[in-house]
């Protein structure tokens, strides 16, 4: 480790280190992946991995959660995006290829990816 020489050095280091504890503080936006039995069978794990990679690549803060079966097995893999104060949007038949779009459009810019939506809730 190099020595910190000033207040600014410390501030910069702190910003870099935010990732260290981020998952414990919880980001504002939540991304929820359905991990029920048929979700996993339909490729939810691969979708999850793609989400994590995309978030890391773009350096985006979000909480990634999983959930069990929600009764829409035929539409798996399911991914929900909840932005603070907005409706919970459920995307269905998500593939790793869709992930950059969901994150780039919806998570970052708040534009819902309409063609993939299978449900909306408050």
């Amino acid at each position, binding site marked *: *480790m190099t*020595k*910190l*020489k*000033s*207040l600014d*050095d*410390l*501030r910069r*280091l*702190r910003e870099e*280190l*935010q*990732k*260290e*504890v981020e*998952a*414990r503080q*919880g*980001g504002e936006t939540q991304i929820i*992946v359905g*991990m*029920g039995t048929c979700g*996993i069978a339909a490729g939810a794990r691969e979708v*999850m*991995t793609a989400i*994590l*990679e995309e*978030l*890391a690549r773009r350096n985006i803060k979000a*909480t*990634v*959660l*999983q*959930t*069990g079966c929600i009764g829409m097995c035929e539409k798996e893999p399911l991914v929900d995006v909840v932005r603070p104060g907005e409706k919970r949007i459920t995307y269905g038949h998500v593939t790793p290829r869709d992930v950059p779009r969901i994150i780039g459009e919806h998570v970052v810019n708040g534009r819902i990816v309409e063609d993939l939506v299978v449900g909306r809730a408050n």
Partner: protein
Amino acid sequence: MNLFRAHVLVCGGTGCTSGGSSEIRARLEKELLAKGLDKEVKVVTTGCHGLCEMGPLVIVYPEGTMYTHVTPDDVPDIVNEHLYKGRIVERLLYKEPLTEEKVPHYGDLPFYQKQKRVVLQNCGYINPERIEEYIARGGYSALAKVLGEMTPEEVIAEVKKSGLRGRGGAGFPTGLKWEFCRKAAGEPKYVVCNGDEGDPGAFMDRSIMEGDPHRVLEGMIIGAYAIGASEGYIYVRAEYPLAVKRLRIAMKQAEELGLLGDNILGSSFSFRIHIKEGAGAFVCGEETALMASIMGQRGMPRPRPPFPANQGLWDKPTNINNVETWANIPDIILKGGDWFASMGTEKSKGTKVFALTGKVRNTGLVEVPMGITLREIIFDIGGGIPGGKKFKAVQIGGPSGGCLPESQLDLPVDYESLTGAGAIMGSGGLVVMDEDTCIVDVARFFLNFTRSESCGKCTPCREGIKRMLEILDRIVGGEGKMEDLDLLERTALVVKQSALCGLGQTAPNPILSTLRYFRDEYVAHIQDKRCPAGVCAALLVYRIKPELCRGCTACTKVCPVGAISGTRKEVHFIDPDKCIKCGACMERCPFGAIVRG
């Protein structure tokens, strides 16, 4: 850098470590790797969460799900169900003792609801062995602020404004103490952190040093800057190896980053810290004895004045504060003295950490705002008395403290109220006792402790405590006389007023407070030769109820001293002179005919 979507926190406090938390960690890493989750789930070892009773604890973020009493064999479920599929492992959740309801979220536990965690904010939340996590949580920003923007006088003014008082027992205003030392003539100046923590059953300071060592260091560095000190000592008892280890790691990391040592953060201020491991005598927590011990002399108190601020280590100006006092400093600087003073009562500001032990459902470490009542701590946070028993008393302030009854439970916890009631804040030990506790026996227990810890330098303490203990021994042995109570009280007052140091001055507190609130119980022992709680062996009598005895002879066979006589099918009889009160017959009697009273 990987993005970890989940952090699994494994408690590495002393309690959970002895419960096997390092095996849990190893197993977690193995299972995560097997499931291919090792790149997305991070395992973090933390300090104590305060709920050691429920340990080993594992907490999964981002949900904040808390799992209790975890064993290595529970790990596959946590990994496969929770981390892989997102399903909470219900059977490992905390259960509300009264309603049996399961509480999935860490923050929703009643145990944490009334707490206010300032000093403990990082304990159980960060990995204490990584300075990165402390910094990510805003650590060392207070130091940067002090060095960049504040003069030493301004720092002292802020601490004075906060109203912070020493957490080591006496409650002296911290800002004022710093000012005395800053103004004292002499170079170099020293700051000392008192981590002796000699109260039996107390573990507040240990948990802070283990769970968030950088907070203590940061407080000390800020204090040193304000006072103008260049050297610091942390005095920790050698029985706290984990605290010593974590402090050493923290110091090394802070030095590497230029936060400790020469020219801190590029400024002209330099400061170093040394660790001194103490042998663990209670009296060594007394400041003058502690300093003698640091200087390699025998740990014995000396009269004050001169106070450490003028003549401390090597006769130089020295400022000594308790671990928790130091740990309060960073937030006072960052958030301001006014913020701190907004918590608590008129004269007692901020929060206090207590070690809640004894006959209470949730034992553990709690941090509460000053001014909260004892009832709230014991019943709301502690969950009340287990086993349907009744509350009897709470000993607050350790062996130097006092024993308070039910009628004092609505007392606000602040320095003045507690002292007025005959107890002290002390360093924060809270021992709850139920109806099965004999108060005379409790006083005797604490006095026995202070007797063996008295350094023997001054007569009132050395002889006085011994004499009082002899009287108590007589009383519990059934040989007490009513005059003994006056003698006890007089001796207690003499010792309180004439002992040299705080050990002797406070040792009579358990006696004085129990005489004040539980005099009947002393009288019962003396006049009726009866121990109402049924604890004092000498006052117990075993008796056979003739109407229940069937003459089965079972008791005669187990009595080790042949105290029971009687022929088969006839009522038996216990000879009280022969009986040694072992209780074996009572356990053996199939008809419940033998009673104790």
